[in-house]
């Protein structure tokens, strides 16, 4: 009995601590959203107000009136094109490789996979300069559209998503594959008709991470963008950063742009948060 009541008390304490903490955690975000609807005057005079006294869309209107300088919808479209293409290509290429590393059997398979995993130790900082030199030499930075190649392709060799997909494929019972083979399915048939549908959840997790990584990437696109020098071909992240570092830094407009950029992410997150959190928790358990 004593333990029961102590458990109950503990739950109550944990609840209140978490509640306070999560309010603290959300406050900056909520305040930022509120502030993006404040007038220039209220930004200075009503600093603490979370809900503006005279809410106005002016910051957003100014932002969209200035599309030639800050084409934010264009940036979003760019980021969406880049992240979608990158994710689609990566899922096909990495899951094919995962198939070879899990369903197909060959000599040295596990050794080769082990080497792949070990290379995750190579610090990415050492690769940035040579990669930059490579994409310049490929001519990928010669015009805006081609510069997207530099943002889509180099990441396709990433190990992390392959690892997630392979961990899932390897737990698919052998009998499923064998019976499909007896039914006369080729490897291509097994891959597309059996493994792909079965591995949907792993592909979803790997796809989410690929998309998020590409969508949120900042350092690499900022290097590419600094060479292409055409505001129409910036990604959303480099575009936002260019607004922030511009000489005539305007609070309201910049905040409105930041809010516009995070709203779709938050909406998508609300729908897929369980998949993301589950995916992350697995990386720790099977590391």
């Amino acid at each position, binding site marked *: 009995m004593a*333990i029961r009541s102590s458990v109950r008390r503990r*739950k109550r304490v944990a*609840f209140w601590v*978490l509640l306070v903490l999560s309010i603290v*955690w959300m406050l*900056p*975000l909520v*305040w*930022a959203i509120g502030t993006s609807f404040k007038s220039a005057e209220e*930004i200075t005079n009503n*600093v*603490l107000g979370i809900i503006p006294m005279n809410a106005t869309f002016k910051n957003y209107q100014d932002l969209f009136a200035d599309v030639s300088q800050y084409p934010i919808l264009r940036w979003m479209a760019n980021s969406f094109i880049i992240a979608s293409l990158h994710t689609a290509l990566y899922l096909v*290429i*990495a899951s*094919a*490789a995962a198939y*070879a590393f899990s369903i*197909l059997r*060959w000599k040295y398979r596990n050794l080769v996979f082990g080497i792949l995993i070990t290379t995750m*130790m*190579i*610090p990415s*900082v*050492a*690769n*940035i*300069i040579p*990669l*930059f*030199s490579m994409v*310049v*030499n490929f001519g990928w930075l010669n015009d805006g559209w081609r510069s997207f190649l530099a943002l889509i392709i*180099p990441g*396709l*060799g*990433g*190990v992390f998503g*392959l690892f997630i997909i392979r961990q899932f494929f390897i737990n698919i019972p052998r009998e499923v594959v064998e019976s499909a083979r007896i039914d006369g399915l080729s*490897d291509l048939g097994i891959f597309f008709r059996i493994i792909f549908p079965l591995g949907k959840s792993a592909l979803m997790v790997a796809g989410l991470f690929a998309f998020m990584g590409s969508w949120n990437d900042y*350092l690499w696109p900022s*290097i590419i963008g600094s060479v292409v020098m055409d505001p129409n071909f910036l990604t*959303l992240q*480099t575009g*936002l*950063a260019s607004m*922030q*570092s511009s000489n005539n830094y305007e*609070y309201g407009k*910049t*905040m409105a742009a930041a809010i516009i*950029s*995070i709203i779709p*992410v938050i909406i998508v997150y609300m729908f897929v948060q369980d998949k993301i*959190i589950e995916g*992350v*928790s697995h*990386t*720790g*358990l099977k*590391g």
Partner: protein
Amino acid sequence: MAKKFLNPEQKKRRYLANAKRYAVIGAFLLPYIILFATFFIYPFFYGIYISFFRWNVFDTASSTFVGFENYQKALFGIGDITIWREYFWLGLKNTLIFVLISVPLLILVPLIIAILIDIQPRGYKAFRVIFFLPTVLSISAIGIIWKWQFDTNNGFINGIINLFGGESVSWLNTQPGAWIAILVTTVWWTIGTNTVILGAGLKEVDKQLYEAAELDGCNYFQVLRHISLPAISNQMIICTITTVIASFNIYGQPALLTGGGPERSTTVLMMFIRGQLTGTNAQPGLAAAMAILMGLLIIMVSIGQLIYNRRAVNR
């Protein structure tokens, strides 16, 4: 099996079957392996190569071989030219300051939150979703939002300080304000992953052990110390290693919040490397040398941690 008794016809058939099998494996594997080799393995060696040149990205043929000059420039300086040495060591010092302060925070805060969530109070799943949310946001949006929170005149934080009668602090332009701003932003942004990983470890612990220990008169903190923490040592190791690497690679927070100031006191090594890469006075060879030195340091620290952890676990 009965390999010896194959006639030529059977041998040929077996050979063809094997060839076909390897063709299939190659077809599945090669696209990925080619991309991996081109964009992950080759650059690694190419970067070492570049670091021995006065490199010209836009006209590689005009690059001149300079031996260890770039390394000498970064580590010791050459003659009167000590500016790169100063940058390198200053960047390294600033990066190490960030690593030393951020890593304990980025383990401790997620650990506390994960323990609280593992108690499973009302709405614990919603709490987990909230603490993970900032992790999915981009550093450029976060840079804008937090730069404003720390703004001297219109910022939320000074607003609260003023409310309680305090004086406004010029967070981003003075020390230690600038580091505090960078650390707060980093903790807010990145604790999600570690919280989830540590939480997944805690969830696996048999809760009957907790009850048994409490029946034996342990209080909850003893239970945490002697049962929970040892049980999640694997997750702790993973989190520590990945967090140390991530903290070494810090770039976006200072680049977007403080611009490396005040007086270069938050200019981390990645910012100096990035600064050498493009622009009119770019020195990609020097940037490559600095990056390789930094990469070596990261590898050494990671291996050191692995060895230390293995010893600690074996003991």
